[in-house]
């Protein structure tokens, strides 16, 4: 699992938003607007409730008049157009008042165990104003603009799992519907998207064409804050990737393609082409990559009509081994999409309720053998070379958020966050004694190596627990880690703004709030047309 591969990943039917929507659709969940106190300009409060998995959840939305000079996607911003709390139950007036006072403060606010998720979003002013103007004029917004932007608002943070006092995940992790990875966060995101559509129609005084409305997802701007998560949650990462790899292995082992399978593959291949054609980004480097993928995919597609051999998908995959990682990842996601019966149950395996369940090594010789077997990729670098250790990860004083510095140009490297796993394992390997001894004896003399020992033990049991790259190399691109994590969330239309942050779209093409039914679960790589 290399960064370059992670940086090409695509959303699949195992992505968390898809999994959540599938469940909502299966239950035919109904979103009810239980509170609406909005000015004509769209400032005020709203509450949406839905029954889901035997529980009631509510999105409390607070919309404020934000001066243009305060609108920023930066995580260091202090004011936003809208603030949200996903609430456990139906809030009464006092609870709505409490949330209305705290949610706009975001990180500076204080929350309780009935607050499941905290979020905020800013308008895409261009899309918002154009949509309001069109609706007021009795027309519809420009489809081309919707295709290019794809959302009315962008979230800039979606906090869960105990942050700022909100509920820990373990409080609801066994509930039907919210048991999946990031399910509460995805439910909040979906309801925020629902709110943005409701609000723009309120302000515009008209109804959006459902086809256009469906293509308005919810944007997100994501930076470094998300990247270390994949390193600090090795078992969770392993479980995500294992589910995906298991899904693909099952698909590759399919022995016979029915006519229905073939038709579905052809349909999705066409959809993928159309999606790529609609996916353009301003950054030249990334747009060039997209255009190459578009061309490569067009050239590859005839192979999706020429099936052969006893395991035709395995044959297809072997033939694709020489293609780019981008094309391979698109192909993997497409093929997984075709086989829901073989794949969907794996979504139950994508959490980590326990942590690493590993036994100790019998001694330093066993530890050395594990390193030799699993960590050659980490031992091959000279970490004294400046470009092999140029980056250092740290937590910023200003916002308590992860950041990335240049060890040779910026202060603070002595406070480095331990994401330099490869370097640590190499250092451990170098310090291991020639004679076998208990690892605890070794750690008594070298306590700093305990972290590396734990990672070696974890990888020995969880094969996808590590990103097999040097995360402090000058060439490390955090954007690749973001792409991986966001693809597991179900993000589309990745729009990288640098190697450090990206914009994305979630829930584009997803069924609208009144369309949640089983047949609506077909929105992989949406196309507006």
């Amino acid at each position, binding site marked *: 699992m290399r960064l370059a591969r992670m940086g090409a990943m695509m959303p699949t039917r195992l992505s968390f938003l898809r999994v959540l929507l599938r469940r909502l659709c299966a239950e035919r969940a109904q979103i009810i607007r239980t509170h609406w106190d909005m000015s004509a300009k769209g400032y005020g409060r709203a509450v949406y409730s839905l029954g889901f998995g035997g529980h009631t959840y509510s999105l409390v939305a607070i919309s404020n008049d934000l001066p243009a000079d305060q609108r920023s996607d930066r995580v260091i911003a202090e004011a936003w157009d809208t603030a949200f709390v996903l609430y456990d139950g139906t809030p009464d007036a006092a609870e709505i008042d409490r949330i209305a006072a705290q949610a706009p403060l975001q990180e500076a606010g204080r929350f309780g165990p009935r607050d499941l998720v905290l979020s905020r979003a800013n308008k895409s002013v261009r899309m918002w104003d154009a949509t309001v103007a069109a609706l007021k004029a009795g027309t519809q917004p420009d489809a081309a603009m919707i295709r290019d932007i794809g959302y009315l608002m962008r979230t800039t943070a979606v906090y869960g799992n105990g942050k700022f006092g909100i509920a820990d995940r373990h409080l609801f992790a066994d509930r039907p519907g919210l048991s999946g990875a990031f399910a509460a966060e995805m439910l909040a995101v979906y309801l925020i998207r629902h709110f943005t559509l409701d609000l723009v129609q309120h302000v515009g005084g008209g109804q959006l064409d459902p086809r256009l409305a469906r293509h308005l997802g919810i944007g997100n701007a994501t930076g470094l804050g998300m990247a270390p998560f994949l390193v600090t949650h090795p078992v969770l990462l392993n479980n995500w990737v294992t589910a995906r790899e298991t899904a693909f292995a099952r698909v590759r082992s399919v022995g016979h393609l029915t006519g229905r399978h073939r038709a579905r593959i052809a349909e999705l291949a066409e959809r993928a082409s159309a999606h790529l054609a609609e996916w353009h980004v301003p950054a030249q480097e990334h747009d060039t990559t997209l255009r190459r993928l578009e061309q490569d995919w067009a050239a590859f597609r005839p192979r999706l009509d020429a099936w052969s051999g006893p395991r035709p998908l395995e044959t297809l995959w072997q033939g694709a081994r020489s293609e780019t990682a981008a094309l391979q990842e698109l192909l993997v996601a497409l093929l997984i999409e075709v086989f829901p019966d073989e794949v969907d149950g794996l979504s139950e395996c994508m959490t980590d309720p326990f942590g690493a369940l*590993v036994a100790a090594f019998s001694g330093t010789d066993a530890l050395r053998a594990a390193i030799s077997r699993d960590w050659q990729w980490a031992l091959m670098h000279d970490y004294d070379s400046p470009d092999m250790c140029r980056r250092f990860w740290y937590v910023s004083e*200003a916002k308590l958020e992860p*950041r990335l510095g240049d060890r040779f140009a910026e202060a*603070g490297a002595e406070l480095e966050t331990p994401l330099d796993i490869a370097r640590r394992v190499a250092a451990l390997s170098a310090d291991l004694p020639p004679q076998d001894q208990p690892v605890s004896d070794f750690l008594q003399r070298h306590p700093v190596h305990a972290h590396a020992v734990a990672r070696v033990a974890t990888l020995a049991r969880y094969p996808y627990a590590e990103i097999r790259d040097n995360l402090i190399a000058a060439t490390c691109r955090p954007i690749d880690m973001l792409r991986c994590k966001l693809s597991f969330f179900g993000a589309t239309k990745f729009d990288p703004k640098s190697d450090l942050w990206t914009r994305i779209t979630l829930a584009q093409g997803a069924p609208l709030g009144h369309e949640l039914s089983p047949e609506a679960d077909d929105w992989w790589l949406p196309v507006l047309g």
Partner: protein
Amino acid sequence: MTDRSWNEVQALAVKAATGAAVPPAQALAFGAMCARHLADGGAEAPLGDALRAPETILSLALQVERMIETASLSPRIVTASEDDAGRRALLVSWLASLPCQTEINVRAHEIQACLSLTDPGTRTRPARIVLGAELFCRMQELAARTYVHDSAASRESGAGAGLMELD
């Protein structure tokens, strides 16, 4: 006294231990132990003492490592002896915070533990943890030692940087 989420307490304790110069693995384990200890009604004083004398944290980590090592070689009840009541309480909490299944008995100064290292733990977690103001402040002070003043380069390159915000 303020009630906090489990993750708030655990994350703060990890940072506090790191700020007290405890290495990463031991700091992570201390954070998990701290949340378990407070959730189970343990006294705050031993936690504060441990943060004042981080060699205590290293020593406890090593004790647990040796117990796990013994349990890995031959699954049976493993023991440790600890004369100091505060350290003994932390050792019990440390074992209880392991991700695996654990059964722990304390007899006078001796701790007996049955560790099923590859079976998941079954201990429940409370909705909130109460953390006293003094320990909270101490942890925050230590945690602050781990933060780095943002560089100009960082501020100019993070998410949302360099764009008009109207698009």
